[in-house]
């Protein structure tokens, strides 16, 4: 046992919390500073166009290497804090699952933006804890969200916001409001419908002895066909209407981001 630092032994939850909070904030600040250095700027450039980065004098390998070292440094800080918090380190903290979770959080938040991984980590933890209390299937939902992100939003949630910088810079966000509001309700119906169906199936398979279940603050009879039909309808109708409106969204997006005289 190490001697106390300034009389603090970092044993109580509160002490540990503030210790971690301090290091998290400090590390975040240092990471931000890193992005403002020459090599940090070139890390952006290499991500954006590695070939051109070489033609302005930087070896993309070295830039990646330095970034990797910096990432390793901060991962080390995280590891130390983890050990203090949980007071145990096992193979589980180094396995694929752990790595995958970190990657997942980063992807959902958005690669390529400073706030992306921070946002992702907060969201991921919320998904894990809040949704984890509501349903046994939180891992399934996170996985679905991940697949959806990779397919449709590879730049993540922060990327979704950043994407809109283009129409904003072109002064054309207004063109998007109508198609977005049109797709919102059918999209929501589809999501609720499919979640309800999944939960219903899960309930029948694993808690079949309980006749009633509560979903979205509503209690209903799982043996009746009414909820099944209702949710299936919601899913199908929501899906089809969303698909129709998705075309409009895509068209409006194309118009809002069209650049005069652009040739590819």
């Amino acid at each position, binding site marked *: 046992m190490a001697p106390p630092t300034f009389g603090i032994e970092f044993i109580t939850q509160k002490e540990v919390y503030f210790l971690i909070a301090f290091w998290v904030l400090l590390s975040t600040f240092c990471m931000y500073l890193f992005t403002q250095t020459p090599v940090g*700027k070139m890390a*952006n*450039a290499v991500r*954006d166009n590695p070939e051109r980065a070489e033609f302005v004098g930087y*070896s993309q390998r070295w830039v990646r290497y330095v970034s990797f070292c*910096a990432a390793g440094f901060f991962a080390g800080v995280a590891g130390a804090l983890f050990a203090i918090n949980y007071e145990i380190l096992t193979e589980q903290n180094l396995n694929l699952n752990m790595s995958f979770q970190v990657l997942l959080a980063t992807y959902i938040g958005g690669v390529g933006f400073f706030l992306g991984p921070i946002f992702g980590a907060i969201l991921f933890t919320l998904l894990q804890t809040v949704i984890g209390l509501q349903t046994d299937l939180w891992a399934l939902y996170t996985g679905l969200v991940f697949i959806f992100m990779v397919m449709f939003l590879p730049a993540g949630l922060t990327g979704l916001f950043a994407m809109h910088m283009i129409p904003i*810079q072109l002064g054309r966000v207004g063109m998007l409001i109508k198609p977005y509001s049109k797709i919102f309700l059918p999209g929501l119906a589809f999501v609720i419908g499919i979640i309800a169906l999944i939960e219903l199936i899960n309930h029948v398979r694993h808690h079949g002895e309980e006749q009633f279940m509560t979903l979205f603050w509503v209690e209903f009879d799982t043996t009746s066909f009414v909820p099944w039909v209702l949710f299936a309808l919601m899913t199908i109708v929501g899906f089809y209407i969303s698909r129709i409106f998705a075309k409009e969204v895509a068209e409006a997006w194309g118009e809002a981001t069209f*650049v005069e005289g652009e040739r590819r």
Partner: protein
Amino acid sequence: MSVEALKLDNVKKNFAGTEIIRGLNLSVAQDERHAVIGPNGAGKSTAYNLITGRYQVSSGKVFLKGEDITNLQPYEVKRKGLSRSFQITNIFPKMSVFENVRCSLLWAMGYKYSFWHMVGNQSKLNNDAEEIIEELNLKDRRNTLAGVLSYAEQRALEIGITIAGGSEVILLDEPTAGMSVSETEYIVGLIRKVTEGKTLLVVEHDMGVVFDLADRISVLVYGEIIATGTPTEVKENQAVQEAYLGAAMEEH
């Protein structure tokens, strides 16, 4: 005579057994503006790719100010003072115009892989970047993402990235391709201004631009230089007339 800024000595390049560059000899004097012309597919861009280390040569040597730079990496070639632009716009599309230019200045201004300088505090770096943007006539686009610029603006930025950092030898690949007459004028004016006192090698299809800009012209046909000389000499050369210029001049 002083040593040539750029010299190619019997450079050859095969792609899968096909010889695309078939013994290229070229020498460009210090401070000369040298144009390379030739039909589509002659190997002009390939020659650039060989000089700048994007491709490896199959045989032959490339010299920059007398120093052998054959088969160096692109970043090494750039560090030695040779910078190029691309026929197909090759910028940093998700970065602002300002960041594009500033990143292009970093190595040349000695920052290397520094993680102990804050770029925001480097006044010379930032001032130089602003100056280049002003020269490019892109001042009101300073904070715009490069990917959103118009084609002509992207071409201007392409040149800006190339000349940033003050390389002594500049290679431009079809800087005015696909541009209207007024845009071409703007780019030619820009090239003149920013390559002042430098060695320029330019590939260009627009004969007006070539005869306007170049001190000397080399004609590249089918992987070989068939003639080199002043614009007048090249214009009157019989072989050039037959192989290329006759047809190209008629278009104008």
